[in-house]
C-alpha cells in the first residue's frame, strides 16, 4: 500500500518536471502597438454604444450628442487606419513561430485524431479555432 503511494508520488513528480527537459520553443510577444490599437478600437466602439444609449435615455442634448458622436467617429476612423497600416514584421514573426510550434505538436500527436489547428488573426494575433470565420477578440474576418 505504502509502496503504491510512493510510486504515485514519484510518477507525479516526474510528470511535473518533465516539461523542463523537453526540447521546446519559445513564444514571441505580441507587438504592443497592435494590441494597443485594438484596445483603442474597442474603447471607441464601447463609447459610441454608451453615447447612443445615454442619448436614447435622454441624458444628453441632441447638440451634445452630435458633437461627441462626430469626434468618436473620426477617432474610430483614425484608429482603423493605423491598424490597417500595422503589418508589423514582429506580428508576422509571432504567427510564423506559433504555426511552427503547432506543426511540431501535431507531428508528435499522430494518434490523436481530433487535433484542431488554430488560425491566428492577422489583425490582433489572437489564436482562433480553425473553423472560426471571425476573430473572437477583434472580430476581423479570418480567411
Amino acid at each position, binding site marked *: 500500500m505504502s509502496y503504491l503511494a510512493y510510486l504515485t508520488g514519484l510518477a507525479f513528480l516526474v510528470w511535473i518536471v518533465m516539461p523542463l527537459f523537453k526540447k521546446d520553443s519559445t513564444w514571441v510577444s505580441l507587438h504592443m502597438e497592435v494590441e494597443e490599437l485594438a484596445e*483603442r478600437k474597442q474603447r471607441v466602439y464601447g463609447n459610441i454604444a454608451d453615447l447612443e444609449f445615454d442619448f436614447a435615455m435622454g*441624458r444628453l442634448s441632441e447638440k451634445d450628442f452630435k458633437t461627441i458622436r462626430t469626434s468618436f467617429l473620426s477617432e474610430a476612423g483614425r484608429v482603423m487606419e493605423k491598424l490597417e497600416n500595422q503589418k508589423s514584421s514582429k506580428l508576422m514573426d509571432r504567427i510564423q513561430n506559433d504555426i511552427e510550434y503547432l506543426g511540431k505538436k501535431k507531428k508528435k500527436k499522430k494518434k490523436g485524431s481530433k487535433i484542431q489547428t488554430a488560425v491566428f488573426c492577422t489583425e490582433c494575433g489572437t489564436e482562433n479555432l480553425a473553423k472560426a470565420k471571425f476573430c473572437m477578440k477583434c472580430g476581423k474576418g479570418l480567411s
Partner: protein
Amino acid sequence: MADLGNILLFFLFPVSVFTALTALAAGVTKRRGLLEAARRGAYAAFAVTTLAVLALEYLLVTSDFSIEYVASNTNFALPLFYKIVALWAGHNGSLLLWTWIVTIFSAIVAYQHRHKNNDLMPYVLFVMASTMVFFSILSVFISNPFQTLYQEFGNTLQEFTARDGHGLNPLLQHPAMIIHPPILFIGYVGSVVPFAFAIAALITGKLGAGWIHTTRRWALTTWGFLAVGIVLGGKWAYVELGWGGYWAWDPVENASLLPWLTSTAYLHSVMIQERKGMLKIWNMALVIATYLLSIFGTFLTRSGIVSSVHAFANSGLGPAFAIFLSMGIIFSVTLLLYRRKDLKPDEEMESLVSRESGFLFNNLLFLLATIAVLWGTMFPVISELFTGDQITVGPPWFNNIMIPIGLALLLLTGVGPLLAWRHTSVETLKRSFGWPILGSFILVVVLLAFGMRDGWALGSFAISFFVMWTIVVEFVKGANIRKKNSGENFLVAMYMLSRKNTRRYGGYLIHAAMVVMFIGFTGNAFNSETRAEVGEGDSFDLGPYTFNAIKITEDQNENYSSQTLELEMYRNDRLIDVITPEKRFYFASEQPSTEVDIYSTFREDIYAVLSGMSNDGTKVIVQVYRNPFVTMVWIGAFILGIGTLFAMLPNLRESKGGAE
C-alpha cells in the same frame, strides 16, 4: 494519518517554490516548457494541499486526540457535522483552509489560461506561487495543524493522547459556521488573482485594459463573496453574540470591510479606464491595496495587536505577516513608481458634470471611508505608540464619520447613473432629477408629520427613496425604448434589455440592494430595549408589546446544560408569539453561551436574550430589544448576491441585425 498529512503539507513548500521559480524563469526566457512546468507545479500544489485537508478531516472525524488541533477544537460528543467544519474553527486549521483556497485559485487560473496570455501568465503564476510559499511556511513551520499533543511529565515533554477534546467554542456552534468562514475566505483570497494580473501587467509593461478584462469576473466574484461573507458575519453576530446588534466596528469586522471598500472603489473606477483610458495608476493601486488589505485583515485577526471579541489569541504569526506585508508593499510600490510614466492618462476630463466625475467622487468617498476605518481600527496601536496607552475608539466615532460618507455614497448611486459620459447639460439634469427630488421632499414632509425627528434617518429615507426611483425609471425607460424599437412586450423587453448589458443592470440591482440595506441600517436610529428580572407569572412592557413569563425550564444533554424562558408576547392584548430565549453551558469547553430568540417581521425584530439569574437566584434576567427594519439588511444582502450573479452572466448577443 497525521504523518501522511505532515508529509503532504511539507511537500507544499518545495512545490510552491518550484512553481514560483519556474514561472519566473519562464517569464524571462519565454520558454514554453518552463511555463508548462510552472503550470503543473500549480496543479501539484493544489493536489497536495487537497490531500492534506482530507487527512486533517479524517483526524477530526475520527477524533484522534493525539493531535493538538483535534483535541483543542473538538470532543467526542460534538455532532459529526461540527467535527467536519472544525477544519476552520481554529487558527491552524483556518490557515490551512486559506492555503487550500490559494492553491485552488492558482490551479483554476493556470488551467483557464493554458492556451492564452502567455506573456502575463509566468508572472501571474509567480505572484500566486509566492503567496503559496508564504502560507506553506506558516502552515508547516509556525502553525502546523498536524502538530501532536504534548504534555509535561515531570521535566520532560511527552507525546500524549487526550481522553477527550476541549470541544468546539460554543459561539461557533451555529449553522452559519458552515458557510461564513469559507465564503469570507474566498472573498479575501480571491483578491490575489486580480493582484497577480496587475503585477504581471506592471512587470511586462502590458498596461492596457487586457489584464482588467481578464480579471473582471474574478474581481466581481470575490467582491460578491466578500460582501455576502461580511453580512453573514453580521447575521451570525446578531443571533449568536446576544448583544442585540449585528455590527459593532470590531477590528475583525473592520478587517473584512477594508478590502471590500477598496474593491468596490475599483469596480467603479475601472469603468473610467475602460471608457477614457484614465486613472490607470489609481486602478493598479486599488487592486494592490485590496490584496494587501486582505493579507492585513488576516494579520490583524491573528497577530493579537488589537484586541477583539473574536480575534485569535497571539499566535506568533505577527512577525511573519509583518515581513510578508512589508515586502508586498515595497515590491508593489516600487513597480508602480517604475512604470508611472507608462500609466499616463490617454484623455482628459471634459466636464465636472459627467459620469466620470461621478465615479471620481465615488472613489474619493470610498478612499475616505477606507482611511477612516483603517485609522479607527489601528488607533489603539497608534495611540500606544505615542502615549503608551491603548485608546480604543468606539462605535460612536465610526458612526459619526461613516454615516455621512455612507449617505453621500448612497446619493451618488442615484445621481451617477443618470449622468451622461463626457458632458451632461443642465436641462437634461433638471429633467432627470426633478420628479425624484420632489418625491423625496414629499416623503420627508410626510415623515416629519408622523413625528420623525432624527435628521440622519430623515436624510437616509429621502435618499433611499430618490435612488430607488431613479433605478426603477432606468429599467422602465430602457424597456420602453426597446419595446418601441423591437415590438416585444414590456416584460420581454425588460429581460432582453438587462441580458444585453448584464454588467449595467446587474450593477443597478446591486444599487437597489444597497438601498434596501441602508433602510435596514437606518432602523438602528429607532432601536429600543428593556431589561427585566422575571419569575414565572411576571410581566413587563416594551413599546406596544407586553411580555408574560410563563415558564422557566432546565434541561441537559451530553454536550451542554440549558435554561429556557418561555415568554408570551402580546400586542394590543392579542397573543402574537411565544418566544424562548435560552442560556447554555457547554461541558467540554466550560463556556456559557446565549441562544437568543428573535420574532422577525419586515417591520421590526423582537430580540430576546436570557442573560442569567438574578442575584438571589429566584428570577431570570431577560433583555428584550426592539429593532426596526433589521430584516431589510438580510434581504438586501440576498438581492446583492443575485445582482452579482446577474452581472457575471455573459451579455446576450442578438442573432439578426445585431447592433451590439
